[in-house]
Each structure stands twice: as C-alpha cells, then as structure tokens.
C-alpha cells in the first residue's frame, strides 16, 4: 500500500479527449459539407433565374422583314432584382455580330436548345453568365441568335455568408453538446471502475471475500483475478491460523500432563527449595497453557468472525452465566461480582464469541484489581447494546492505553501477573466482528472501565 503506484495517463481524460476530438472533427466536417451544399443550392437558384431570363429574351426574338427583332419583356430583367442590388449585363448576338447589349460581356458558345452557365468577369466584377442560342429561320434568312445574361454575385455571397454563419453556430452548438455528452459518457463508463475501487477500499482488513456485485463484462478478467488473488490470500491466512491453533492445541495437552505430574511431585517433596522450584514450574506451566489457550481462542475468533453465527440471545443471561462460573475464582480473592442494568437485553449474536470476550474482560478485572473489592458489570440495551466491566483496581496505565488492544501488548502494570497480551485483542475482535467497538477508560475515582458496545 505504501508503494506509490506508477501512473500512465488517465482513462477518463483519454476517453474524453478521444470523444471531444471526434466531435470537433465531425463539427468541422458538418460545417464544410453544409457550406458546400448551400453554395451549390444558392448557385442553382441564381442559375435558374438567369436561365429563365435568357429564355424569355430568346423567346421574344422574331424575324420581321428579314430583320431580327428582339422585343423582350420587362420581366426578363425585373426577375433579376436581388436584395443586394446585383448588377446585370447582357448581350444579344446575331451569329457573330453584337445586336445589342454589352460588348464587355465575354462571348460564350452555346449549344442550341439548352442554357449553359459559366463564371467570368465583366470589367473586374465577377459574374455568373447564362447563355443560350436559337436558330431563326425566315424567308431568305437562316441565322443563330445567342443571348447571354450575366449577374454579379453580391447577393449570393451575402446569402452564403449568412448561411455560413448559421452553420458555424450550428456546428459550435453541436460541438458543445457533444462535449457535454462525452463528459457524461466518460463518467458513465468510468463509474463501475470507481464503484469497484470504493467497495474494495471500504472493506474491513479481514474481509477477503470475493467481489460479488455484477461488473461490466470488460472488467470481468480484472475482477476475477482480484477475486482469485484474495482467495489465495484468504486461504494462506487461514492455513497459518489453523497452524497456530493446531500448534497451541498440541502444546496444551502435554502441558496439562506435565502440570499434574508437577502437582503430584509437589505433594511429595518436603525440602523448601525444591518445593519453591516446583511451584515456579507449575506457574510457568500455567502461563504457557493459558497463552496457548488464548492463542487457540484468538484463532477460533478470527475464524468465526468471518462466518458469524448470529443467534437471538439475551445478553443479561449470558453475563449471569459467566458470573456464576467465575464466582469461585472471585471468592478466592474476596471480590464480589455484581451485575446491573436492564433486566433483559435481547441481541442477535454469536454466543461463544461474546462469552469469550466478556470472560476475558472479567478475567482482567479480577487479575488487575486488589482483593477485597467489587467488580461491577452493567448490561444496557440502549442506545446500543453495551456491556461495561468496572473494577476498583489501579486502572489502565495511561501511556499504554492506545496500544493495549493490539496483539501481545501488555501494560507496564502487568509485571508479575500471568497473561499473554491477547485478552483485550480477543474482546476487541469480537466487538468489531459484531459491528461494534471496545472502549478502554479509567474511572476518575480509580479503577479500569472497559466498555464493549455492539
């Protein structure tokens, strides 16, 4: 955990950048296509009007007395009025001679029967030119009339600028929408990854169960390898715990045998030195077997905590039973065990674990308080089910308080008192397994106070 993870970029920004980049390219494409298309349509519009104008002039051409007359209608030019007041030019040719109109207009060849379009310029002004021609046949006359009408493109370019502006606005809007969408899409995609991270981070230190919530198919390989990693970890952890339990068990049994032999021998030995030695031996054996017992308990608790066997029970009942069992020990030290609090405290929990925890707390109180006193055990139902154990001893050494519930931690006041440093650890593990906690405190009037809330 402490090792910094090497970072190479970010999925979120890579995804966002790709999406936004794509949207930008699309927006520009949209703009170009719409513009080109609009230009074509606008040009088409102008061509249509120019074509109509040319046709109406050509239609007015008649041969009268061997002379060509072109009495074209007013509409031929009035249809060319535009909002930008475009200039118009025209030319009417009979074969190759200009009959009337502008000689500055470039002469274009035309195929009879249809209108051809071209772009050119008349005295520097760019124009669109429509040209058509028609064969006139009179009495002794056979001639081609060619008509060109040209118009500047101010109105057209005005329209195009306007369309261009609108399309650009449209494209920008499209782009902004796409940006918003890509942010949304990115967080929707990254979401499951973040949820997985959060659920892994929020796990308790003991929780090595596989991830069970459904994940997107792309994340399956990652999650399944994570699950198998955790499974292996869990397995090896359990193996080492099993090993400890096994070891403790194996040590305890022969120790019991050794102890009974030592006791028997003590009866028979008279010499004071030897008795002293034997008593020390018994004490050491007790200490070892107690430690082995607590190791066993601890291993058991670690195991059971993962598979909590919750059963409805009454905490007061549970405490009463324990007190009953411990009264003989207490009597030996002239200590009274008193139970206070609510009459009934129903709770669903693992009875074996809870008994173990409370026994350890009462044990401690007996061990660390002087004889001839009382231990008060208070069981309360609300706001959360709590068991307080209070003695009249010297209390916890202030300096050690924070580390006492860790494994094998013993206080400065523990010298000469049998113990392994696992009692409070067990109580705390049980509390945590039930979703509660263990709080150590000292009574200002003297005496330790341990509160196990569930």
């Amino acid at each position: 955990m402490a090792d910094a993870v090497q970072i190479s970029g970010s999925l979120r920004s890579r995804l966002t950048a790709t999406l936004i980049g794509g949207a930008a390219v699309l927006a520009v494409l949209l703009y170009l296509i719409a513009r080109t298309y609009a230009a074509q349509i606008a040009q088409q519009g102008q061509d249509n009007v120019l074509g109509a104008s040319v046709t109406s002039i050509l239609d007015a051409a008649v041969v009268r007395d061997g002379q060509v007359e072109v009495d074209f209608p007013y509409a031929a030019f009035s249809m060319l009025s535009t909002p930008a007041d475009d200039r118009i030019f025209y030319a009417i040719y009979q074969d190759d001679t200009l009959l009337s109109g502008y000689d500055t207009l470039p002469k274009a060849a035309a195929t009879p029967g249809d209108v051809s379009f071209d772009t050119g310029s008349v005295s520097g002004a760019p124009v669109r030119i429509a040209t058509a021609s028609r064969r006139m046949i009179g009495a002794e006359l056979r001639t081609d009339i060619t008509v060109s009408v040209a118009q500047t493109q101010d109105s057209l370019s005005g329209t195009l600028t306007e369309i261009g502006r609108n399309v650009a606005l449209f494209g920008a809007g499209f782009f902004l929408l796409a940006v918003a969408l890509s942010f949304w899409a990115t967080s929707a995609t990254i979401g499951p990854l973040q949820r997985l991270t959060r659920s892994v981070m929020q796990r308790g230190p003991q929780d090595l169960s596989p991830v069970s919530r459904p994940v997107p198919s792309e994340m399956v390989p990652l999650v399944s390898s994570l699950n198998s990693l955790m499974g292996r970890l869990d397995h090896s952890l359990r193996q080492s715990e099993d090993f400890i339990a096994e070891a403790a068990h194996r040590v305890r049994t022969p120790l019991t045998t050794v102890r009974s032999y030592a006791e028997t021998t003590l009866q028979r030995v008279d010499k004071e030195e030897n008795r002293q030695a034997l008593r020390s031996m018994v004490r050491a054996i007790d200490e070892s077997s107690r430690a082995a017992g607590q190791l066993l308990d601890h291993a058991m608790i670690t195991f059971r905590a993962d598979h909590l066997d919750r059963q409805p029970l009454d905490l007061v009942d549970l405490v009463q039973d324990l007190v009953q069992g411990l009264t003989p020990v207490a009597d030996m030290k002239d200590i009274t065990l008193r139970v206070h609090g609510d009459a009934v405290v129903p709770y669903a929990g693992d009875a074996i674990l809870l008994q173990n925890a409370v026994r350890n707390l009462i044990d401690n109180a007996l061990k660390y308080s002087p004889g001839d006193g009382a231990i008060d055990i208070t069981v309360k139902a609300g706001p959360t089910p709590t068991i307080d154990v209070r003695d009249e001893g010297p209390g916890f050494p202030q300096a050690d308080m924070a580390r006492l519930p860790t494994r094998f931690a013993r206080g400065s006041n523990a010298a000469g008192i049998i113990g392994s440093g696992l009692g409070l650890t067990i109580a705390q593990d049980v509390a945590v397994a039930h979703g509660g906690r263990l709080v150590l405190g000292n009574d200002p009037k003297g005496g330790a106070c341990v509160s196990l809330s569930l």
Partner: protein
Amino acid sequence: MRFIVSLILAVWAVTAAAQDWEERQVFASGAAQATPLRVLSSTDIALFEPVLQSFLARYPGVEVEYLVTSTASLDTYFRADPDGYDVVISSAMDLQLKLANDGFALRLEDVSHPPRAQWRQSLFAFTTEAAAFVLNRAAFAGQELPTTRQGLIRVLRAAPETFRGRVGTYDIRASGLGYLFATQDARASETFWRLTEVMGALEARLYCCSGEMIEDVAAGRLLVAYNVLGSYAAARGDLGGQIEIIQPVDFPTTMMRTVFVAERTKVPGPAVDFLRHVLALQSADAGEEGYALPPLAGATGEALPSTIALEPALITYLDQLKRKTFIREWESAIIQGP
C-alpha cells in the same frame, strides 16, 4: 446665409467647352482655395439654387460648378468623360440606373437611405415627382376637366379643330425623361398608345423639356401638354393663373430624381457631403420650406406603389433593339403627317 458672400458667375459656355450647356453657373462662398466640385445635372438652376445655397452655407470651402443639360445628353457627356464630373443628378431614372449598373457610381456603404429609394448604395433618389397633364385654364373655362387619359382622349376627340396643333408632349427621341415616362406608360396600359395616336392625329407638337411646354400652355400656344413634370409646373407660381395641373387618377406615373457620386471623382469628400446634404434636405420629414423640388415621398414609410421602381429592369427599354422598335412605333403613332 447672411455671412455668406454669394459669388455668382453666370457664364454661358459658347465656344470654350465642347458641350452646349443649357445653363452653367459657379456657386462659391468666396473662401480662398475652395475645392471645386463639378455637378452635372438635368435640373434647372432656378429649381436647384436654394439647395446649392444651403450647401454652401454649410460647406463654405467648396466651390460648386453647376452644369445643366438635358437628360439624354447628360448621359452622353458623362459616358464620354467620366473623370470630368463629381456628382450627377438626373430625372431619367433608367439612364442613371444604367450608369450605376455600368460601374460609374461610387458605392457609399455608410449612407443610410430607404431601400426602395436607393440602388446598390450608389444611386440615391431624393424626390418623388409625378407626370401630369397641364391644361390652359382659359381654354377649359366652364368645362369639366379630364382626370384620366380616357377622359383626355374624349375631350380631344370631341373638338379636334380646337386642339389641332395645340397639343404638346415630349419628343421621346430627344428627352430621356420623356422616353422613361412613355415607356412606363406603355408598360402600364394600352391607353397610352391610343392617346398617342389621338395626339398624332391632332398634329401634336414635340418638346425637349417640360419648361417650354409649360410656358407655351400658359401663353395659350398649347392647350394641353401631356406627361409634363407636375413639379416644374407647380414651381412656376407666376403662371398659376393661366395653367391647370392635373395628376391623372387612372394610373399615375411617378419618377424619382436620383443623384450619385462619380466613381472616378477626385474630391470624394465634398462630393459625398453634397450628396448627403441633398438627401437630408429632401427627406420628407426635413419639413423646410422654400425648396422648389418636392421631397422624397415615403422616405420613412412605404414608397408610393405607382413610383417607378429603382431596379435593373429599367435598362430594358434602353436596349438598342427595344428602343428602336419602341421609337418606330411611337413615331408611327405621333407623326401622321401627310
């Protein structure tokens, strides 16, 4: 006005200039080193002088040379020498529009003018003037006055002997404005041709200009003048007793006098000032009295529907073939000599 020293040099160009000017006059406020501004116009000095004076009052540093000629020769002169003039004013909308279309007019993007009264930001209209009948009051005493072309035809037919040789109209071959009125009339109704034939049968006299026609009507040499500029007649307050001006109600033909700054002017600053000044004086809401020319109608609102539109279609009748045909038909109607 009072601090302006009006220096008026009336010089009739006789030989010096190649052109024959109807009128030529230099207006200056007497300031030293005044910028010369040549204004080519078809509008008589008498009508335009107040406008010129008010321009000089505002821009004393400009010396205006005002040259008057007929609409048709104005077009010819200007095309022959497009560098020679700075501002061009004419009542022949078609010729003016063709000049602008051919690129002789300067584009003035920042002059704001109603769209119907300008073309391409280069040709600007500043009056609205209708063609009218002008009648001799004495000849029509006690009679009902004709208010339509049909009515006029009836009156003329009823007394051919009275009107023979005493009917006048524009010679459309010589007058650009006359040609514009005639072509627009012909576009509007066939009645124009019937009236022309009736006038031809009465040996109509043909004139180059409105002014002479009005004077002849006032003097009794003419009894009826057709398609005369009503504004000119109205401006002749001195003849008010002798003439009657009638705006035909069947279809009025209304033109707009237009002005533009020459593309190749060497003094664009004063030329544009002049144009702006004319437009401002003539806008309908200027409301100042004393200018002989009628203001631009509907400068703020809708233009009169009958007003000839400023559009490129105006060049239709300027087409050589069409003009030839039109004039041939007109001649055969109006000239029915023996």
